[in-house]
């Protein structure tokens, strides 16, 4: 039997030993249990919310899950959801993209040219300490109430997170890797591509994960302040009318969007950092 298994292994066939099979089965059953408990927690919360609404707490304050679901359904059917969500997503994605790219490039540059970093250090620290949200009104003056001002707010927030993370990542690169790569015949471009960027990737990805919610927050805050479309606009309108059902529906949409993006980033991270090994 084991001889057969070995022979099959030698032929390159994937042979899963009983130990591997048992381990995988244990993992599966554990994951199933966790999933079940998760669902239970969610259902329990909804039940509590449903029970409390109108009985212990005024429905006007906390709405109710069935109302929120119905509102979301209506928004989906009449196009309200997509009409507003699309603009929020677009602003977030653009802000995120612009902030990431500029932050990454500048982070690399400052990381490689330390004198530059030293010169600018106090200014960067100063600008970094400003809550970027405070810039939102300014951006609305500059760019108007259209999508541009929301993109600017998101980009400003994301820029700093990515810039500082990339910079730290580049400073952390093991100089031995740089030296040996150059000795092997690699030029500056090769060092950047094969050593600096992959080495800084862990930091950059952490920055990405942190800044996704920020990008969304930036856009929504921009929309709160002044807009005529977007989920943030929807929420602020509803708040003005004491329409808590719509407020909760809007918040739920934002939570879902954030969760989806973060899950995507988690997979991206697992793939980019796969070299760290499961061990």
């Amino acid at each position, binding site marked *: 039997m084991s001889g057969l298994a070995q022979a099959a292994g030698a032929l390159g066939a994937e042979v899963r030993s009983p130990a591997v099979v048992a381990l995988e089965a244990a993992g599966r059953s554990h994951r199933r249990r966790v999933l079940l408990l998760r669902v239970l927690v969610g259902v329990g919360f909804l039940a509590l919310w449903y029970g409390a609404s109108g009985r212990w707490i005024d429905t006007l304050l906390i709405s109710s899950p069935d109302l929120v679901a119905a509102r979301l359904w209506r928004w989906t059917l009449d196009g309200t959801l997509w009409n507003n969500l699309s603009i929020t997503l677009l602003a977030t994605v653009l802000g995120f993209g612009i902030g990431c790219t500029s932050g990454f490039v500048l982070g690399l540059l400052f990381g490689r040219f330390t004198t530059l970093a030293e010169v600018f250090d106090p200014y960067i620290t100063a600008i970094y300490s400003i809550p970027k949200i405070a810039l939102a009104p300014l951006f609305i003056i500059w760019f108007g109430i259209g999508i541009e001002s929301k993109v600017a707010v998101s980009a400003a927030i994301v820029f700093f997170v990515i810039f500082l993370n990339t910079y730290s990542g580049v400073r952390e690169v093991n100089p031995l890797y740089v*030296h040996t790569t*150059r*000795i*092997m*015949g690699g030029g500056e471009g090769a060092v950047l591509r094969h050593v600096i960027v*992959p080495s800084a990737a862990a930091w950059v990805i952490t920055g990405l994960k942190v800044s996704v919610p920020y990008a969304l927050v930036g856009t929504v805050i921009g929309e709160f302040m002044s807009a005529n479309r977007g989920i943030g606009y929807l929420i602020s309108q509803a708040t003005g009318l004491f329409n808590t059902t719509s407020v909760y529906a809007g918040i739920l949409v934002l939570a879902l969007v954030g969760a989806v993006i973060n899950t995507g980033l988690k997979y991206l991270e697992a793939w980019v950092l*796969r*070299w*760290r090994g499961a061990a």
Partner: protein
Amino acid sequence: MSISIQAVRKAYVARGAERLALDRVDLEIAAGEFVAFVGPSGCGKSTLMNMIAGILPVTEGVIVHEGRPVRGINQHVGYMTQADAVLPWRTVRQNVELPLRFHGVPRRDRAARAEAMLDQVGLAGFGGSFPAELSGGMRKRVALAQLLAYGPETLLMDEPFGALDAQLKLLMQEQLLRIWTARRQTVVFVTHDLAEAITLAQRVVVFSGRPGRIKQIEDVALPTDRDPFRARFLPEFERAYTRLWEALAPEIRRGEAA
């Protein structure tokens, strides 16, 4: 002459104080020669290797490699450093292929050469693994495969087989000797293992304790096409071992006492 080390001194400046690591080292290494460095730990062997590779500047003196004074990174050597320098985010195969890529080897040849080299160091089938999935000794062999695959004319090897068990070490020594016999690169080989130095090298350079100076140079009388398994039973081996040990032992004891 491949490497000419002329009156080289190296002082490290640490916390405002200068500390001498190497003092007045003079050494000529001929093209195609296999030289081993031995000496108590901390005597500056790695420092000297780093200076030949151009990673560190000399404090005084000059190192000339293939007729050019070494200033800045020396791309005419291959360097297997003492610390692990295999890139952790590249698979074993991608690591071995990297210098081939820098030297303009076409993609298809790269893969074939990497596979062949990995096979020679006993890592066939590990091409797709990441370094984190290998043992320290296996990572050393990846570095060896990488070094030998792209074929620089001068090899600097800093304790390359230190992490290997005795049997594997012998096999690797045999591989290295075979490749060197065929290609006749200039090899500078640092080791803390006297037997290894004698087994491999044509000349063994003994360094004194810190600050490192050359204390003795021993010509090994073994034939160049020696067999590393049998070399250690020859009388020439024994004679070299005794003389080298006599030079090295007081340096090690001095280090212990200090």
